[in-house]
Every structure is written in structure tokens, then in C-alpha cells.
């Protein structure tokens, strides 16, 4: 028997709403089991919790997450593929008191726009880049990106990435963390509730670095793409942790405030 409530029960406290205040609608076109909407919710919640509502600007790259820009109550701009860090640089320099962030996929950031993110990080722009990394060009069908890890199944190679044939993945967070002028880098994942809670902590720290103007910040969030991986939705989190999660690891790669 289904005993779920249909109306708010009497004598209770609401612990979580459906979406967040910054979502205009909870309906979205992303696939069943996609990790992106979870990462987006976490980021919007942090904007609310840090009182950055009305003081934030998001620059989206091209990819599936951009399908949600119409329903987010945040000032947003859709940039050319991979060029979000450059657009965000301009916005932040003109509006230095705003929290400026990018929302990019791995195809967008690591394949199409690698130069943009590296130069922006090296220039120590006071922005936060979010990488929703599923290791595939999800939006255009699930083909391999420069971030697909060894052995990872993609639509263009169902037997997985092979180093001899496809070369090695570019570990973008590691590269960015190695640059001077970069203040905060962390990698999280939305594979389970604990991972999502950790992701939220990293997102909050990245915005805190930005608002203290300590330097560039990047949070990579591993997200499921069962469509691109040709996996069952229910198997998505486990497959993600066996591939992307296991090869790259989760945690903070750089925290200049903690070090200082």
C-alpha cells in the first residue's frame, strides 16, 4: 500500500521542497537518470544559502545542462561552445561584485574549450567554473570526449576507450590546480546522497573563494549519463564510480584559503 502523503501532513516540518526557489518549474527535458539536474539543484541551493540571489550571473556552455536555462531564475547567458570562461571573464570584470559562474560539460570545457578554461584560470579571473563531467558529448549523442576515461563505454566505442587507439583522458582539474592564480579546485560526484552532500560543500567553498577574490575556482561534478553510456538508469551511479570516479578520485585538489 502506498502511504505517501498527498498534502503537507499536520504537525510536521518540511525538510526539503521539490526543487529550489530558483527553479521556475521542476519539469525539464533531461533524460531519466541524468545527473545534471541534481548538480544544478545543488548549485542553485548554494546561491540561495549564500544570499547571492539577484547578485549572480551564470554563463552556460553548450550541452544538456543548457536545456534547463529557461526555467532558472538567475541571470544567464548561453555562450559559444567552450567559450563560457571568456564570457564570464568579461561579465566579472564589468560587474566585480557579482558571483559569476560557468556551467559546462566535459565536451564543452575539455574538448572544445580547453584553451579558454586554462587561460582564464592562469589569468586568475575571480570566477567559478562548474564542470558537469559525464565523459561524453551527451547532447549530441554520447560520443567520446577528451575527458572520457580508459575503459569507459561511449556511443562511439561500445567496448570502451583504449589508450593505444584513443590516447589518454585530459585530467582538467589536475591541470587547473597546478596553475598559479587558482584558488580552489575540487571534484565531487552525484552518485549517492553522501556524494551530493559533499558536492554542495565544495560548491559553497568555491563561491566563498570567489567572493573573497582569492583567485579562480573550479568544481568538477561527475554526473550520470545513462543515455551516452548505454547503461540502465539504475546502473548509472555504480558505472560512473567504476569508471570516472575510480580513475580520478573525489575530493579537494587545491584550497589556498586552507593552506594559508
Amino acid at each position, binding site marked *: 500500500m502506498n502511504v505517501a502523503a498527498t498534502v503537507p501532513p499536520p*504537525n510536521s516540518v518540511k*525538510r526539503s521542497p521539490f526543487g529550489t526557489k530558483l527553479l521556475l518549474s521542476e519539469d525539464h527535458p533531461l533524460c531519466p537518470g541524468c545527473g545534471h539536474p541534481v548538480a544544478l539543484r545543488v548549485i542553485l541551493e548554494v546561491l540561495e544559502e549564500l544570499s547571492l540571489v539577484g547578485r549572480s550571473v551564470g554563463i552556460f556552455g553548450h550541452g544538456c545542462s543548457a536545456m534547463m536555462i529557461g526555467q532558472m531564475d538567475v541571470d544567464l547567458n548561453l555562450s559559444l561552445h567552450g567559450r563560457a570562461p571568456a564570457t564570464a571573464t568579461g561579465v566579472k570584470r564589468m560587474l566585480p561584485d557579482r558571483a559569476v559562474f560557468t556551467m559546462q560539460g566535459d565536451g564543452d570545457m575539455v574538448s572544445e574549450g580547453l584553451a579558454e578554461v586554462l587561460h582564464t584560470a592562469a589569468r586568475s579571473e575571480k570566477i567559478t567554473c562548474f564542470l558537469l563531467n559525464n565523459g561524453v558529448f551527451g547532447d549530441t549523442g554520447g560520443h567520446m570526449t577528451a575527458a572520457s576515461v580508459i575503459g569507459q563505454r561511449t556511443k562511439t566505442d561500445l567496448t570502451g576507450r583504449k589508450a593505444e587507439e584513443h590516447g589518454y583522458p585530459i585530467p582538467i582539474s589536475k591541470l587547473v590546480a597546478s596553475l598559479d592564480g587558482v584558488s580552489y579546485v575540487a571534484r565531487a560526484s552525484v552518485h*549517492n546522497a553522501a556524494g551530493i552532500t559533499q558536492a554542495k560543500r565544495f560548491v559553497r567553498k568555491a563561491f566563498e573563494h570567489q567572493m573573497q577574490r582569492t583567485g579562480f575556482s573550479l568544481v568538477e561534478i561527475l554526473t550520470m549519463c545513462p543515455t551516452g553510456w548505454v547503461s540502465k538508469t539504475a546502473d548509472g551511479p555504480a558505472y560512473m564510480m567504476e569508471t570516472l570516479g575510480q580513475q580520478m578520485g573525489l575530493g579537494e585538489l587545491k584550497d589556498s584559503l586552507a593552506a594559508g
Partner: protein
Amino acid sequence: MSNPVQSGGTVIIAQDRCKGCELCIPACPPRVLSMSTEKNALGYYFPELAEGCTGCTACHLVCPDYVFEVYRLLPPQPSQSQTSAVQ
């Protein structure tokens, strides 16, 4: 009884929005969610709640389609007469 759940919490399930991914099923620590046998208007099976929800919010955290609203039930308040007897 509009709300028969006597445990620490309950959820409202926006079942029409569910896309049937089943991520919420293993995420629920007391395992009180299971998939329906009926499909919703989108053509997907959706989760149903059995007795024993703790209001932990794990289902809400993992759901990509914002299907869960979670409530923690408060312990019953002492009645007026009991309160005045103590005073």
C-alpha cells in the same frame, strides 16, 4: 486518516513528473520505497512509499526530477490540561 504514517517522516511524491529511473529505490536507507506496477501519464513506473519513512531526505537528494517533498513529523504536543497541571 489522511496520513496513516506513524514513523518519523513522510514524503509527497509528484508521481506525474517521475521518469522511472529507480535511483531513489536503493537510496532510501530503510528501503521503504518500491516501484509501482501502474505507469504514470509519461509512461513510467514511479515510486510508492511503505510504512517506515524517517524523513531523511535521501530520496529528494538523488532524484533528478525533483519528485520528492520530504516532511519530518513532530512528536505529539502535550495537551493544554497537562501543561496547566504542571504549572
